[in-house]
Each structure stands twice: as C-alpha cells, then as structure tokens.
C-alpha cells in the first residue's frame, strides 16, 4: 500500500475530489493547511500598513491506495489540481506498512 499526500490550491479541491471519485477512490482525508514553496507569500495592505503574509492557505489531501494504483492516481491528482500557475502545490507518495479498518479489524488492502 501507499499513502499519497497532495498539497493543492484550495479552489482545486472540488476538481480533484471529482476526479478521484471517477477513478474509483472510496475515501480520503482533507485538512486545511498553510505553507509556502516557490510561490512564497503575498502582501496585504491595511490603512497603508503593509503586511507580508508568508504562509498561504492550502489543502492537504491524504489517500491510501494499493501499490498498483499509486502511479495512475498521482497522475489523476496532478492533472485535476494543475492551473499552470506558481503555487499549484505538490504530490508525493510513501510506502505504508499496515492499515486497519477500525470497525471490522480488516487489515491490509481489505481495509481500504
């Protein structure tokens, strides 16, 4: 199994979610996150006082998948999340040792 983590622009969440549902993903975990990469932050002005906001809002998606699906699923996420502008985010995967469905106690791919 693999854990796919994607950090994306918040307004792309719906696109990514639909694409993943079409692909056949049953579930995911979504977290509101903040951070920066090459995009850096932006500047806000309040009554003339300028503030540099380093951390911009992002969405962090986590999806557990079987090994065989990982590559293709990453492509689906990347395609749906892409706007072509700086700050589109990142997607990565890591191997997962074990997964358990809490309700039934199913382990491994059965738990997905």
């Amino acid at each position, binding site marked *: 199994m693999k854990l796919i983590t994607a950090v994306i622009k918040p307004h792309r969440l719906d696109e990514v979610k639909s694409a993943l549902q079409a692909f056949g993903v049953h579930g995911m975990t979504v977290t509101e996150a903040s951070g920066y990469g090459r995009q850096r932050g932006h500047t806000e002005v*309040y*009554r*003339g*006082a300028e503030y540099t906001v380093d951390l911009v809002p992002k969405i962090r998606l986590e999806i557990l998948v079987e090994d065989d699906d990982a590559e293709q699923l990453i492509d689906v996420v990347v395609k749906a999340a892409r706007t072509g502008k700086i700050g589109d985010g990142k997607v990565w995967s890591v191997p997962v040792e074990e997964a358990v469905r809490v309700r039934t106690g199913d382990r491994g791919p059965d738990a997905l």
Partner: protein
Amino acid sequence: MEAADIAFVVICAAMVMLMTPGLAFFYGGMIRVKSALNMLMMCFIATGISSVLWVLYGFSLAFGDSVNGEGGGIIGNLDFIGFKGMLGVEGSETLLTFAVFQLMFAVLTPALISGALADRVKFSAWAVFIAVWVSIVYFPVAHWVWGDNGWIGGLEIDGHEVIDFAGGTAVHINAGVAALAAVLVIGKRIGFKKDPMRPHNLPMVLLGAALLWFGWFGFNAGSELAANGTAALMALNTMVATGTAVLGWLAYERIRHGAYTTLGAASGAIAGLVAITPSGANVNPMGALLIGLVAGAVCAWAVSLKYKLGFDDSLDVVGVHLVGGIIGTLLVGFLAIDGAGGFAQFTLQAAAAAAVMAYSFVVTWIIAKIIDVTIGFRSSEEEETAGLDQAYHAETGYDFSQTGTGSVTVASSVPATTQTAAGDKKVDA
C-alpha cells in the same frame, strides 16, 4: 416643542444609540482576534456608565444654567441633579426630549476613544477612565459648545458665531485629542511596528461602518431638534459628503498603495461623517461634496502619521476623528452659506477647535496618568500577549473547532464546581 419635533428627535435618539454598537463592530472587526470581545465591551460599557452619570449629574453639568452667569459659561449648575424638577413642569417635554437625545452623544463620545487604547488596557481601568473623562471633559465641553450660555457658543467676531452643528469640536476633536493624550500615557502595544496586527474580520468592520452611517443621520439631522428644512439639508449633506469621502479615501489608496481596500472604504465613510458633522447644516451640497472628498483623502494620509511619529493609536482615532473633525470644523469657516464664510468665520472656527484641543489634551493626559500610577492602566504583559478576552471576560469570541478551544468537561456546566477557566483567575482585574 411640537409633537412632530418630539417624534423626530426621539427617533433620532434611537438612531444615535445604534451608533455605539455600530462603533463596537467597526472597531471590533479591526482588532486582532484575541481581543475582539474586549473591544466590543470597551464600547458597549459606555452605554451603562454614561447613562447612570447622565441622570445623576451629567445632564445638569452639561445643560443646566451656567454657574458663572451671563456670557462665557464654563459648566452647568446642579439644578437638574437626578433630573429633579424636570418632570411635570412647563416645557418638560422639551427638556426630556433633549436629554435623551444628548445622552446618546455622552455614550458615543467616550466610546470613540476606545479604539486608540485597544488591545492593551485593563477593562476596570477603562471603565474608571470613561466615568472620570465624561465628568470632567465631556460634560463641560458640551456646555461650552451647546449650553445656552456656553462660552464657545457665545464667541463672536463681527456678528459671526462659531459653527459646530452636531459636534465637530465637542465630540470628534474632543475624543480624537483625548485619544492622543491617553496613548501617550499608556504607550505602545507589544510588537507595534514589528508584529502584524491584521484586522480579524473586515465584513464586521463594514457592517459597523454601515450602522454608524445610518445612525449618523439621527446624530446630524436630529441636532436641529426640529423636523424642518435645516434637518433635511443636514441629512442630505450627511449622505453626499460621506459618499465622496469613500471615493477620496479609495483614490488615495489606489494611488499610494495600489488597491481599493474594504477597510479604506469603511474608514473613508467615517472620515466623511466626522467632517460633515460640524458643517453640514451650513454648507450647500456642493460644499458637502468638497468637505467629504478632502476629509477622505487627508484622513487616508493622516492614519500613516502614527508610524512616522511613533505613537500607537491602535485603530486610528486620531487620524480619523481628530483630523476629520478639524477638517470639517475649519472648512465650514470658508464654505459656510448665507455670506458667513470668510476669514472671520475661519478664525472663530480655529479658535474653538484650539480651545477644545488644549483643554481635552491636558485634562485627559492628567486623568490617564493618575489612573496609570494608582490602579494601573495597562494590562500585564502576559494578559496582553495571550489576549484580553480571556483575561477580563472569561470568553472567546469564536469557536474555531468543533471541540472548542478548551477542554469541555461535564463539571464545568455544573454551577457548584465551576472552578475552571474563570474560577481561579482574577476576572475583574
């Protein structure tokens, strides 16, 4: 007083009442989230304190007969103390209508100052400050300007008299300069000019500005104390000056900072309202457009002064109310209709503004200093850093998570064992 006039002024009084919660929202949205409730409460507490003092002795000091006889009245006598002798006598409907309308001004004026001190003062010290400030600054100044025999109202040069229709000097210059004096005593917020102090809720700021704008029609038009043409002119000018002030502020911002900000639009509206307050009954709508435009653009610049000069006026009470009040008070000197505008009028206006500034600055500085050395004006560093909401009000403004910000236990809802957050803390600092 005619029935129609009583109806008009009492409704206007209710509209002015709405300005204080409006101001609370206007300021409250601008403050950081950790002290949002404290900001609302700093404004709202004035409704209680000023109401009590108004009945006990405030109305009498402000609008009783002057203690020093004809001409040059300094303060009212104690004839109306506890509103005695005001009910069931001839003319009591006029007195009571005027008293309820003017009470709203006595509530709003000290509340205006709170924006300057936001985010760093003890709530109890602030309450004491309001009580003392309205007693020895606001009530006398209101008497000077609006009392039958007040000395500013009685100033005269070549038949010209000071124009302060609804409170440019007594309310806005007074509160603005008091704000400056008070912040010079209490000092800067921790992190001023270093930490970002972003407004936590701009929609709330705009809502507050809108409530203020609405209530201001009562404040300005109601000051005529009669339902007539002057009240109508004042209402019209209140609208158009505020409209151009919004444009003035936004234009300045677009040129200087490159964006049309929501905070700028809301602030521009208040700057325009402040400037038209003294002047609106004495200028034509073209003059009102000009006053609004100047107030919007100049106040947009004036709010940057605190960074250059190094005084921490948290929410720009000086930049908006003092500067806006001066603009309106001085410009009407030139723009007044019916042949009044000119150098003599301008000189009178400047003299009235200077007198109020001098008195209010000195007395406010002394009040703030005495409070600071006796009971202490400032919050502790820990309270200020953690946020004043929890320190003084045992509440948080917003529940950001489903589980709440603290641990919710069954015991905390049982009165006998409510020894959690608030219990072991000295809530009323």
